[in-house]
């Protein structure tokens, strides 16, 4: 296979989407790097060409191929091309991209199990079609030798097909029986095997009724349901892996004079690690060199940056803002504070795992019922006919085939596939199979503030309170820094058409602010204590010009796009909305009033968030938690169902059931509507299946069921269930 790859690539660009294994083999030959990017926002053919053109224009890129189904791009490039550069290049043409860890993804890329199921499905479909054609001749009155011939040909097609295609059911049934339990696959396997065995016996006796077509179409329809189910699960699993891979964790280790980039797993306690401004702390540690400010909003929800100097301890996940820091590692990987919360999460998770899905509840009633009914039919007819085993067995097989959960096997997967496809198009990834059902049940929504309702990006609020001269000086100073408050100030002032004053000797003092000389006077922009200003409770930066008293620039966190709409629509749906944040009361109250949320809690610790959700749950509410920070993780796991944005810390994304890929929050309200609709479709589907059974089972029990009736009942119920599921679109 490997040798075929180069010719395939050159001969047919459409075949270039070769799987990881082949590309890896090729990579080891040529020394090229293969980079995988996740592209959550692509959706059309224009996007494909724009992204591919954008990537190919980048020097060193040899080939780029977008996979729209998985929303990924795989790139072959010279070894010196960094994923970061490509992400920047794509940002330039207007697409967000994240790097994916190839090692984690290779397993899902070659979806062996899915292909295996598809192949069994194809074989079953092919055999069912042919046997059905032969059966049509029998139903329309073929007799004697012709009927026997057709039965024998059917048997020749059906028996090997059943042996191959129905294996997944047999295996599952064996597994369940070996631990002395019943599952859906037991009646399925029994029906298929009994039908095939019975029909073979009838054929040898030149009997009138053979159920080969029914056994095959049963296999076919059930495999179709199984395949849909597998695909939804595979997408969910690959999503979970994709999220784990989103942040490829690396750190810059200092050994003597040299710096090297290593994986976090390789770090040991006592190592020295350099964190550049704008970088995230990879580990827990103590600052040994440098001063800076750190943003802890992801961990605590505070929006105000905190000063960091020598001796200050920092936690993994915090963002370094202004100056380079050297850390001495105190805890790495599994021991770091990012993982300490795992216990809390695990505790909350175990309560959620007790949720039984609709399909499981149906199966619990159904599987014993089917066996009982077939046995009753067998025993009853044995007694009525006075010991005619052949007749009794024939009727029992007919009952098994007709009651077999063909439509039930399709009822749930068809709906969840349609619904999760629809949600994916709106930018939501469902990570958990039962999340959709749980989402449909919620009546209370709890939001986190920082990073969830807001973008975690500050916005200037008091532009008009200042002299134009102060503004000009502030702009000149702020332009010299990449601190988020400075960047926000520059954005706001540029928008107001302020011209920067001319300053000299500009220099940034990491951890404090920026200073310069303006018309011979010293000017400073930075932390309150540093410019001799009174610190206010709001997020603010302060400007002092010469001896004049300092002025403050206050900021609020910018609202996330669609936040207002999402809250308003959720309230219109009659859901109770809460806001629980770790930020200061002033900031939380302002946000709650802006969005019209009456119930808010400020300065909540992570445990308090989780226990607040526990309290609401005990009061009888089903809670949807929307959050992004480490402080939300326990709460996300404790809630009935949880959603986190893709910008969230990995711990939060892992704990949540659904991930919002885009920036916009507006799809949130639609998602609950889609979930409710899909659950009612699942219920309808169960209803349809039950109605078919109510009509067909008495006929079968009375012994009037012919193979034709069985084939009709099965196909009609399966098709109507699938069509009902598709109405969701």
């Amino acid at each position: 296979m490997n040798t075929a790859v180069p010719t395939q690539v050159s001969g047919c660009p459409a075949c270039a989407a070769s799987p990881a294994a082949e590309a890896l083999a090729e990579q080891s030959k040529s020394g090229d790097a293969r980079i995988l990017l996740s592209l959550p926002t692509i959706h059309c053919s224009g996007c494909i060409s724009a992204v591919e053109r954008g990537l190919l224009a980048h020097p060193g890129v040899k080939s780029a191929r977008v996979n729209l189904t998985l929303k990924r791009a795989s790139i072959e490039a010279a070894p010196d091309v960094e994923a970061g550069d490509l992400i920047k290049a794509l940002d330039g043409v207007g697409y967000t991209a994240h790097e994916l860890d190839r090692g984690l993804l290779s397993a899902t890329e070659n979806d062996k199990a899915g292909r295996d199921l598809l192949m069994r499905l194809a074989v079953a479909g092919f055999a069912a079609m042919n046997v059905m054609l032969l059966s049509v001749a029998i139903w329309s009155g073929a007799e004697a030798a012709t009927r026997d011939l057709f039965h024998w040909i059917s048997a020749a097609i059906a028996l090997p097909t059943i042996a191959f295609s129905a294996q997944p059911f047999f295996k599952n049934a064996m597994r369940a029986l070996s631990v002395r339990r019943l599952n859906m696959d037991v009646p399925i396997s029994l029906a298929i095997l009994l039908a095939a065995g019975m029909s073979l016996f009838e054929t040898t006796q030149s009997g009138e009724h053979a159920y080969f077509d029914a056994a095959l179409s049963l296999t076919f329809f059930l495999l179709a349901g199984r395949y849909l189910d597998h695909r939804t699960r595979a997408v969910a699993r690959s999503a979970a892996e994709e999220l784990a891979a989103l942040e490829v964790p690396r750190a810059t280790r200092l050994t003597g004079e040299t710096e090297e980039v290593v994986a976090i797993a390789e770090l040991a306690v006592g190592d020295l690690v350099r964190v550049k401004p704008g970088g995230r702390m990879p580990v827990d540690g103590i600052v040994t060199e440098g001063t800076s400010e750190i943003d802890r909003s992801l961990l605590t929800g505070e929006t105000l940056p905190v000063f960091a100097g020598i001796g200050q301890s920092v936690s993994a996940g915090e963002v370094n803002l202004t100056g380079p820091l050297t850390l001495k590692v105190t805890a790495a990987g599994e021991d770091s504070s990012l993982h300490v919360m795992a216990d809390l999460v695990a505790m909350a998770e175990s309560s959620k795992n007790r949720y039984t899905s609709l399909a499981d509840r149906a199966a619990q009633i159904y599987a014993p019922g089917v066996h009982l009914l077939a046995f009753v039919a067998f025993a009853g007819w044995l007694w009525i006919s006075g010991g005619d085993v052949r007749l009794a067995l024939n009727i029992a097989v007919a009952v098994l085939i007709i009651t077999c959960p063909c439509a039930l096997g399709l009822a749930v997967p068809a709906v969840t596939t349609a619904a999760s496809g629809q949600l994916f198009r709106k930018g939501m990834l469902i990570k958990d199979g039962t999340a959709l059902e749980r989402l449909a049940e919620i009546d209370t929504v709890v939001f986190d503030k920082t990073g969830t309702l807001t973008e975690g990006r500050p916005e200037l609020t008091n532009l008009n309170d200042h002299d134009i001269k102060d503004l000009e000086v502030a702009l000149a100073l702020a332009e010299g820094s990449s601190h988020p408050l400075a960047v926000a100030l520059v954005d706001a002032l540029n928008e107001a058409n302020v011209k920067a004053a001319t300053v000299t000797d500009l220099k940034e003092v990491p951890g404090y602010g920026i200073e310069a000389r303006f018309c011979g006077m010293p000017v400073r922009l930075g932390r309150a204590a540093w410019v001799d200003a009174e610190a206010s409770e709001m997020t603010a930066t302060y400007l002092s010009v010469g001896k004049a008293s300092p002025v403050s620039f206050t900021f609020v966190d910018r609202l996330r796009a669609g936040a207002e709409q999402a809250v308003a629509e959720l309230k219109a749906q009659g859901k109770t909305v809460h806001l629980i944040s770790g930020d200061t009361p002033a900031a939380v109250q302002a946000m709650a009033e802006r969005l019209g949320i009456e119930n808010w809690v400020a300065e909540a610790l992570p445990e308090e968030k989780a226990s607040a959700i526990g309290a609401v749950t005990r009061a009888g509410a089903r809670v949807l938690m929307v959050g992004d920070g480490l402080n939300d993780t326990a709460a996300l796991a404790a809630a009935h169902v949880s959603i986190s944005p893709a910008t969230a810390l990995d711990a939060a994304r892992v704990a949540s059931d659904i991930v919002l890929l885009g920036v916009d929050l507006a799809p949130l309200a639609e998602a609950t509507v889609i979930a409710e609709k899909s659950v009612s479709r699942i219920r309808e589907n169960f209803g349809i299946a039950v109605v078919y059974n109510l009509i067909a089972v008495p006929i079968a029990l009375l012994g009037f069921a012919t193979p034709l009736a069985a084939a009709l009942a099965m196909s009609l119920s399966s098709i109507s269930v699938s069509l009902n599921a598709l109405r969701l679109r």
Partner: protein
Amino acid sequence: MEMLVYLIPISLFLGGLGLAAFFWALKSHQYDDPEGDSQRILSPDWEEEPRP
């Protein structure tokens, strides 16, 4: 009725041909990106020569 001796094998052979074609398509990764392929066919981009 003797025609059946020919017709049934022929119909099975033709059906098997379709099945084999499906296997080939499955093995050559043509089901990896169904959505992307349906969009690409409408793409106005084209190249004089296949990419190296």
